[in-house]
């Protein structure tokens, strides 16, 4: 097992390097950069001549290293990340990219992980119920709801929930993660309650599709596993049905759910982007979107890099968990 873990971690390093190059190249692909926009601003708004503004912007390019060739820029960027944890400068926010990222990534991760955890747990439980009560009313109902849950786009669910809260239930403030009066307050009980009142909305919205998905996967797998010979063997031993279910069947039905965890995490981080814009959340999604629109190159690249790192780490973790529950993988 230890050697398996080490092997898997060693694989990750070259993968991360490759991924960082791809991120950087993709971000640099569109013509022009942030300073192109500044240059035209200088011309139109500050009234400088073409030459003067070009000169100023070229100076700035030099200070920020934007005049160098792409490979050199990449090397500087990655060297600073690895040695100093410095992701470069965000022109848009006028502060270091990592400050923008950390601030937002924190909330993104909290919301994404909560949504993820809840959707996995609830999805599994409903899936187990459905599979053990196949063709019952409850099974039909949850299968139907899962279908609905998967078909509704997230932003639409977000709009519907906001509409209901504001116009039906007269909730004074939705969107964001706190009411205006608490934004600057220090953490106390009232602020915490207010936070929870805002927090559940994005969690539920980004969780719904996950619940539906996990439920369907779990139901299908468990029904398969129920037909397998070792489950019949377990029953033939005289075990209680509950033990047959949880000890022998569920464990073997978890594979695709665990394998999905690694992929789902960054998907949820990214996928909540539209929801986050609709709900006005301080997460990475909207900021990433802005950074792309305004060619805030390093910030966008850093966001992309962070999301891929989350993907790679998520995959690593799910592989390790799979190896932990399944001896056939770890003895390979």
């Amino acid at each position, binding site marked *: 097992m230890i050697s398996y873990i080490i092997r898997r971690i060693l694989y990750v390093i070259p993968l991360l390097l490759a991924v960082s190059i791809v991120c950087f190249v993709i971000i640099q692909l569109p013509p022009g950069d942030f300073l192109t926009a500044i240059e035209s601003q200088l011309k139109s708004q500050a009234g400088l001549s073409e030459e003067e503004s070009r000169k100023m912007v070229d100076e700035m390019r030099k200070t920020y290293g934007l005049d160098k060739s792409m490979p050199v820029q990449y090397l500087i960027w990655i060297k600073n990340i690895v040695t100093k944890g410095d992701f470069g400068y965000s022109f848009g926010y006028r502060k270091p990219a990592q400050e923008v990222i950390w601030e937002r990534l924190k909330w993104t991760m909290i919301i994404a992980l909560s949504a993820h955890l809840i959707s996995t747990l609830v999805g599994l439980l409903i899936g187990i119920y459905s599979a053990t009560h196949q063709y019952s009313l409850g099974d039909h109902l949850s299968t139907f709801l899962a279908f609905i849950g998967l078909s509704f786009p997230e932003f639409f669910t977000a709009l519907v929930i906001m509409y209901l809260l504001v116009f039906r239930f007269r909730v004074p403030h939705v969107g964001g993660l706190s009411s205006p009066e608490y934004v600057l307050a220090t953490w106390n009980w009232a602020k915490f309650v207010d936070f929870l009142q805002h927090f559940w909305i994005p969690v539920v919205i980004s969780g719904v599709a996950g619940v539906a998905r996990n439920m369907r996967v779990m139901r299908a797998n468990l029904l398969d596993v129920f037909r397998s010979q*070792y489950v019949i*063997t*377990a*029953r*033939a031993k*005289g075990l209680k049905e509950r033990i047959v279910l949880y000890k022998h069947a569920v464990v073997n039905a978890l594979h695709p759910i665990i394998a999905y965890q690694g992929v789902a995490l960054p998907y949820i981080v990214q996928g909540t982007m539209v929801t986050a814009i609709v709900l006005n959340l301080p997460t990475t999604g909207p900021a990433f979107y802005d950074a792309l629109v305004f060619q805030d190159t390093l910030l966008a690249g850093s966001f992309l890099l962070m999301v891929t790192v989350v993907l790679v780490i998520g995959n690593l973790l799910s592989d390790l968990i799979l190896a932990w529950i399944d*001896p056939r993988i770890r003895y390979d």
Partner: protein
Amino acid sequence: METNSCLINVKGLCTYFYTDDGIVKAVDGVNLKIRRGETLGVVGESGCGKSVTALSIMRLIPAPPGRITRGEILYGENKEKSVDLIRLDSRGSKMRNIRGGEIAMIFQEPMISLNPVYTIGDQIIESIMVHQKVTKKEAKEHAIKMLDRVGISDPAQRVDDYPHQLSGGMRQRAIIAMALSCHPNLLIADEPTTALDVTVQAQVLELMKELQQEFGMAIMMITHNLGVIAETSDNVAVMYLGKIMEYASAHDLFHHPMHPYLQALLKSIPSIVGKGERLAMIKGTVPDPLSILRGCLFAPRCLEIKKICQSEEEPPVIEVEKGHQVKCWLYA
């Protein structure tokens, strides 16, 4: 036959599957008796209801779609104490104590009969601990003893192996060890050697005979291979499409085969047909289990067909010699 009391006495068992396409009468009026310590062979082409008969005795018929619609399965040698397994709650504690504790079952596919995520030791220990009041340590010692007994070398090491680390033959031995760990009165072996190499088949059959002597248990040996029947069985039931066509001692069965179906089966075995003679095939194929046949079920494939065979009347069961029954118009 009446005088000797039986360990298990199946009377008029009917097990039907209510599928979307119609009713499959997988077992339709089967009578079987097994005395203590004896081996009953159940033989027939695949799909004739052998496994369903076994699973009915174990009360492991998947419901829905399956249901035992009629009959009795009397278990226990003495009249007052015998129970009708059909009247027990299939998930209740009484049936669970019998299942695995007093009637054990092993299955055709050793490769998939053990749960891949637990060691064989864990799975044998689990079996012991549901039926006997022992500590885990004692159970493990017993498990090692059983593994040793079924001919697994180095059992103290092997007990911690996972199923995928054993060969097919070794796995079937481990499964036998698991089934016998609680000293059952009856072992139902559903094609225990079909999936194994010929040499390993012979070893496993030999082992089962030895263990039968040692533990004094009865065996219900299910197979489609008349050679296996010849090796192991005292009495034999020949099944076709959910019904028993012929029932006799192994000696009578091979020396005076009565039913045209059995005669045809015997003619299709290379070792029984002499060198140079043509191997016969049974005309046609096993009919679709959903098709509704009346009268003699074998008539469409029978070579000795008479007028009455095509009538809608079911052929009677005729006792041609003492203890030798055949369900065929030819002997009426």
